């Protein structure tokens, strides 16, 4: 293993992404807004920096950014959750009260669903949680394995006034989402039909199901349905640890959902992904405070467990993202960091640069450890025309970020973008870039990638090249946004149509040695880049104290 030292490991801790003070964290649980506070629960091992002994960690915030750690919300203290208080979701009832459904791993490792609720609904911090005396409320039905029944969704209302939930599972190799109706969350009626199923996708966990507006850019409460609404199913693939989603139509009458495009159905390799990097077990919630749907995603580590143990913590959460249907393409979602992240922006620098083929330019922003970058790129029109008018250039059907050589593989019109978390000599760097090529019918085809293959000298780190195709519509410029926060880099292309989150562990490009570069590695294209770079403040996430009561968002 690489000889990590404390200087390197200390630098990896993030400044404005949520992570506990120490130890292990995974899935987001039951996010909600209640009496002026955003609540965030998470799968947490209070005893070690590796998975196990899972309880519900708890934090609150006024703005989804400045978090305050609260005491643990739920621990495994009953036979029905003795081996773990696992993932769950919150539902607001009509009277404004909260019910929490979560998966418990019983003393015999059977996955069951349990009901919990706030012990004191008048407490805005929801510090104490009570477990229903009649738990478990659901056990694996006949035909479902004892370990294939987990992660209940937020409930939504049916047209008959009942509540409906879905739970992920599998039958042989077919991933499925079971459907249950309830009126009181204590007793349930199982549907014989499934919300959806896709063969050869394996176990579905952390299923999420919600409506998106076809016409509006605001989010929708989970129970909303109607002609201007599409429904999204997201499932986390146990086999591949990828979060896939698909857009389709939900039929309330029989509790089924049909994808708009079966060729990109949930979980198949061509299906859409929330994020083409490290991003899993995600969950959305409707923020009634601001009328938006917010997406949380667990960002695991790409280094070794030994290194995690050495540094004493593992995993972060992505910056919460708003999620809406892309009303221009209507074929994908767009995700964007919540607007509150802008409150962390400090000083900024604006740049307009034209860079020729094969150029790398340092961008003088001082230390480049905590940044928010927004950029627009334009390829010189003549270069584009020459390329697309050249009939000898065939459509590039095979190009993919993962397999086409990364940022050093030069093409006519790319790659170009930024190298973040780089040292002066570029011996360590993480390029986030576009690559433009010729697609079908001589149309522009653009991919957005993050290349971590040279991100660190360390050898006990996985260093993939991430990315995917990103739709660029007529008249649109190429745009990207990058959030850099120590060991995490989040990239958003074309307003969030394609997103890539990566974990990066430089050994030299740390502290004051961290630099930012703009590069154009294309062979034939001159690129104009207009961009703004903000230094980002820390979110100063800390344990809650009485002094924090009534403190407005910073």
């Amino acid at each position, binding site marked *: 293993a690489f000889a990590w030292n404390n200087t390197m490991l200390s630098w990896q801790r993030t400044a404005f992404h949520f992570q506990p003070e120490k130890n292990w964290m995974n899935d987001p649980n039951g996010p909600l807004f209640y009496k002026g506070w955003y609540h965030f629960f998470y799968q947490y091992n209070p005893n070690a920096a*590796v*998975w196990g002994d899972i309880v519900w960690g708890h934090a609150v915030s006024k703005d989804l950014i400045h978090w305050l750690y609260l005491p643990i919300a739920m621990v495994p203290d009953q036979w029905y959750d003795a081996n773990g208080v*696992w993932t769950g979701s919150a539902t607001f009832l009509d009277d404004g009260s909260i019910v929490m459904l979560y998966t418990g791993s019983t003393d015999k490792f059977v996955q069951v669903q349990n009901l919990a609720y706030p012990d004191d609904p008048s407490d805005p911090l929801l510090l104490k949680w009570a477990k229903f005396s009649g738990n478990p409320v659901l056990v694996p039905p006949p035909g479902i394995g004892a370990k294939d029944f987990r992660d209940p969704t937020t409930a939504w209302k049916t047209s008959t006034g009942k509540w409906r939930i879905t739970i992920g599972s599998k039958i042989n190799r077919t991933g499925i989402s079971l459907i249950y109706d309830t009126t009181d969350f204590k007793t349930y009626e199982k549907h014989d039909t499934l919300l959806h199923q896709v063969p050869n996708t394996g176990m579905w966990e952390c299923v999420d199901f919600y409506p998106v507006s076809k016409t509006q850019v605001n989010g929708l409460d989970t129970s909303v349905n109607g002609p201007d609404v599409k429904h999204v199913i997201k499932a986390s693939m146990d086999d591949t640890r990828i979060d896939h989603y698909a857009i389709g139509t939900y039929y309330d009458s029989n509790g089924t959902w049909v994808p708009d495009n079966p060729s990109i159905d949930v979980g198949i390799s061509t299906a859409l992904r929330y994020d083409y990097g490290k991003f899993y077990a995600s969950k959305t919630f409707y923020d009634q405070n601001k009328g938006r749907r917010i997406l949380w995603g667990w960002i695991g580590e790409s280094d070794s467990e030994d290194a995690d143990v050495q540094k004493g913590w593992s995993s972060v959460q992505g910056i919460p993202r708003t999620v809406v249907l892309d009303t221009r393409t209507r074929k994908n979602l767009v995700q964007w960091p919540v607007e509150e992240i802008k409150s962390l922006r400090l000083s900024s620098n604006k740049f307009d640069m034209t860079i020729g083929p094969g150029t790398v330019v340092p961008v003088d922003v001082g230390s480049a450890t905590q940044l928010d970058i927004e950029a627009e790129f334009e390829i010189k029109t003549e270069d584009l025309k020459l390329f697309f008018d050249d009939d000898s250039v065939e459509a590039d059907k095979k190009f993919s970020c993962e397999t086409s050589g990364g940022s050093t593989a030069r093409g006519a019109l790319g790659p170009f973008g930024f190298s973040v978390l780089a040292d002066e000599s570029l011996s360590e760097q993480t390029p986030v870039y576009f690559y433009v090529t010729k697609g079908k019918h001589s149309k522009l085809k653009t991919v957005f990638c993050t290349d971590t293959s040279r991100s660190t000298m360390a050898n006990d780190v996985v260093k993939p090249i991430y990315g995917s195709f990103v739709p660029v519509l007529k008249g649109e410029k190429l745009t990207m946004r990058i959030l850099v926060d120590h060991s995490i880099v989040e990239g958003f292309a074309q307003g969030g149509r394609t997103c890539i989150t990566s974990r990066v562990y430089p050994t030299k490009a740390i502290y004051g040695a961290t630099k930012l570069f703009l590069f154009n590695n294309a062979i034939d294209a001159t690129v104009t880049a207009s961009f703004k770079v903000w230094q980002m403040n820390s979110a100063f996430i800390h344990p809650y104290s009485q002094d924090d009561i009534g403190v407005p968002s910073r």
Partner: protein
Amino acid sequence: MASTEALLPVTSRQDPLSESRSDQIPETRQRRPIKVHLAVYSGLLLIALYVALIVTHDGSTAQHGAKDETSTESRARLAGVSEKSNDRVSRLSDDRKVE
């Protein structure tokens, strides 16, 4: 005495043979294989003890390390959730161990 007695049976077993070959094998040469055998067996015993010590020592370390790495992997899987550890790093690590 004890040591002489211990050697006696060996000598006595060899005596009939030495009787038949006494004209060909001098006494000194008869006793050398015993010493060689003793030396070899003692050496082997020492090596075995040494190896056992190494294995025990390394084994405990490896077991401890393996527990950290594989038990986390298997613990999540055995418990019935998706793998939580970074399996690609684990695979790299395992490959190195094999090498």
